[in-house]
């Protein structure tokens, strides 16, 4: 498996990561090596095998629909980089 610089740039954009041209070259080489090693799993025949996303037999877990104690707004916003009048503030979106 060979990952090109262009593939890396595409994946970086999907991941919302800004990478330099030099980094793209390094990551292309490393990710190609890693993915070539991953190819090993193709030795296995799995067409009739169910996937395991989770080891436990999980069901949806619900709780009673009643109001419980939660964080006060002030507490919840304490770690927020920028706020205004009790809201989260971000740069221009459109």
């Amino acid at each position: 498996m060979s990952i090109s610089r262009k593939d890396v740039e595409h994946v970086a954009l999907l991941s919302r990561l800004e990478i330099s041209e030099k980094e793209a070259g390094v990551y292309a080489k490393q990710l190609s090596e890693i993915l070539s090693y991953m190819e090993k799993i193709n030795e296995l025949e799995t067409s009739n095998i169910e996937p395991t996303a989770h080891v436990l037999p999980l069901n949806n877990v619900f709780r009673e629909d009643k109001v419980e104690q939660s964080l006060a707004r002030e507490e919840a916003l304490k770690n927020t980089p920028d706020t205004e009048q009790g809201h989260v503030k971000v740069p221009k979106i459109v």
Partner: protein
Amino acid sequence: MGLYNYTIYELHEMLIKKETSSEELTRSIFQRIQKVDPYIRAYLTLAEEAALKSAKKIDKLLAAGDRVPPLAGIPMGLKDNICTSGIRTTCSSKMLENFIPPYNATVAGRLIENGAVLLGKLNMDEFAMGSSTENSRFFPTRNPWDLERVPGGSSGGSVAAVAAGEAIFTLGSDTGGSIRQPASFCGVVGMKPTYGRVSRYGLIAYASSLDQIGPITKDVTDCALVLNSIAGHDPLDSTSVDRDVPDYSSALVPEIKGLKIGIPQELFPEGMEKQVEELVRKAIEKLEEMGAVCEEVSLPHTPYALPAYYLVAPAEASSNLARYDGVRYGFRDKDAEDVVTMFMKTRSEGFGEEVKRRIMLGTYALSSGYYEAYYLKALKVRTLIRQDFDLVFKNYDVLVSPASPTVPFKFGEKSEDPLSMYKSDLCTIPINMAGLPAISVPCGFSEGLPVGLQFVGKPFDEETILRAAFAYEQNSGFHRPEPSLEVN
């Protein structure tokens, strides 16, 4: 011998008999930290004032003659991906460098309710991604047995702190070996419980279907005591299992006559160090001498666990780490004029190299056109890996293997080659893929460096691996090894 040399159960006795106080003990551990941490660098944050306050509270209870739980007054440290109310929790990342959680992780809350005294937060590979603690964005932690070598990872700070007497016990987290591999590297006991046994609420997520919190202690008796207080259902974690928690301490009977132990040949991988293999084989002979029945078994799909893991874990990580966008908490690049540029700059500066590598790997494995070939295929391989374990556990009670194929390596030895670093977890990753409990205990030294023996159990059968590990520990001659840390 300093107070830092004692175990939880010994200190508990001493506290009850008033031979020491929690305050004296806590102060002495801070002195120890002051002395050795400039060399070890296990701690990211210390909480001395709050710790002394908690210690005094316990001393009052003791003075009044109240009965206190076994962990009361005992100084502990927590890995820095476990949220602690009012105490900075960084994940060793620039992204969370100034993050102060407004709540406690369930495990932190339970330990504090049990009277344990929180000393501070411990270094790790950034977002728990790594096997050497070299990926911390702040500084690497050193191995107390040899300061030129890594402590393992990703719970390197948690493990080095216990080995160096900078905490009586700590918690780590284990996604692919991050408790057991460093426990092996530093000569302490480290357990990853069954997936679902311990709440993950407040554990900053790396790969949610694999992450599990566990104890790091000086010996197996202490491990059971800590597990007693953190195990159990938590309504705040829908993947924690609602199932009775046994008293793990009563499992500690040094008797394994007739215990059926499987030795999976695939967990002795090609390229493992000869001395490590010899020490593990010697430990197996010891188990046989003690009356266990040891037989070679095969887990034919485990050689595929590592490649499958490095698709599944990064895929989950790429999704879990999407939340770090500079909007609600954590680092934000303040210069960007529009929001997309802000996301991109925030994430590029906030995350380190390995984290970015895994996010991209995971995004690739999940992206259109590759999802079936990589992610889905890896999940199917995971099924085959589980089935291997299910089959073997029909005839065996416990499996035994090395916890790491090597002794601790030197700084920089693997950090330039991601794949060689990944292979450091060859013996531990299959166990996470199957969600099983496992424990690493010291089984000897190769040229002065510790080697760990791994016991693997059936789902929710922590008791049997604790019993086997306890029996081994009591008879091995490697109970509580201590590094001769020569510092001025």
